[in-house]
């Protein structure tokens, strides 16, 4: 379907508005400014090259995030991040049934950021896609290349892991550490 491919000018129009989101996501994944820059640049290069294969009517944003993520996963830093569905993430400390509203209210922005940083990449990325990028489950499934059912279960576990992180920090703070 050669004629369904978008002209080059359209790639620019579609891709450039995603720049800020992609950089933020890249920085969260890599946890490093230089690596994030390289990752974003490589993402744009790859996307431009592969743009002729992009089908109209499919989600362009999800496609771009998918390229960025795949590029990250094959990078040195990315290779260290394991797939949570292969490892037993449930072994993480389970939070006590503390009233969570209280927990979140106690947790300031920096605390949430720190907790997010400490999460393994698969949990971190799915929370970012869901909460920061406000993607639908379908979009997330597209980016991560997993079924929607897996999106739901991973999201559930990611949230639980985040709560555990926050609780730990909160406990530590209350103990004056």
């Amino acid at each position, binding site marked *: 379907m050669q004629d369904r491919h978008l002209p080059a000018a359209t790639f620019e129009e579609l891709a450039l508005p995603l720049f800020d989101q992609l950089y933020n996501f890249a*920085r969260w994944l890599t946890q490093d400014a230089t690596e994030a820059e390289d990752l974003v640049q490589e993402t744009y290069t790859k996307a431009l090259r592969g743009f002729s294969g992009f089908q109209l009517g499919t989600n362009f944003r999800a496609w771009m995030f998918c390229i960025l993520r795949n590029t990250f996963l094959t990078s040195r830093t990315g290779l260290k991040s394991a797939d949570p569905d292969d490892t037993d993430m449930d072994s993480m400390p389970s939070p006590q049934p503390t009233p969570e*509203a209280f927990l979140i209210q106690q947790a300031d922005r920096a605390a*949430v950021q720190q907790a997010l940083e400490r999460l393994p990449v698969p949990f971190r990325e799915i929370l970012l896609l869901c909460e920061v990028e406000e993607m639908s489950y379908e979009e997330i499934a597209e980016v991560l290349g997993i079924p929607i059912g897996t999106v739901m279960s991973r999201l559930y576990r990611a949230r639980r892991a*985040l709560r555990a992180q926050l609780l730990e920090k909160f406990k530590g703070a209350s103990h004056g550490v």
Partner: protein
Amino acid sequence: MACDLWREKLDLYADGELPAPDAASLATHLRECSVCAAEALNRVQTKRALAIAGKRYQAPASLREKVRQSVSAPLPRQRRWAWSIPAVPALLVLILSLGVGFYVQRETARRQRVYSEVADLHVATLASASPVDVVSTDRHTVKPWFEGKIPFSFNLPELQGTDFTLVGGRVTYLGQMPGAQLIYRLRKHEISVFILQDRGDEDRVLPSGPLSTFSFTVESWTKNDLRYFVVGDVGPQDIQSLSKLLRDAA
């Protein structure tokens, strides 16, 4: 439904992924159950906290510029020309039609110019005090009169049995060329016949055929190196029949 079953749906509800009927029932439950409502509020707060905390990093302007340039850089030559392959025939058609259109327009304009000159001359002649210099209904009188006055000779048709009558003739100039102008009459209408040497240059090659312009009908042709114009305020059929007579006589 028990609260713990609702709890399982709270994440989906907060994420906006719960199907509409379920979401409506859950909303009803949340108004009645304070425990579940607190849970739901907690999810929403967590989401909001994450959304804020997650928007953390600002890209350096230099990177934005680098990316912008890499994206807007011209594509490889091959790609750039790919679009033009189907466009080439279209472009040719466009050029051709423009060319033909231009040619036709130019020809029409030239024809109009020459014909309106002929029509002007015809009107000017009829308006003058002495339309003809030689008054005669006899072609054998009119034709010799032109000898020595114009650099060519011509034949005139026999009008016996037709509605046309010869009024007379005069020397005229059209496009700085001397020529013969003959006035014919048809039912009180005057018709001018101009006979000139056909210069054969491009300017004189006029498309023949009748042309109605300024309420006059004009017909023109060349024969034996002579250019004929027949112009009058009569219908094309009358002009054509006179033209035919002239052509046959020549």
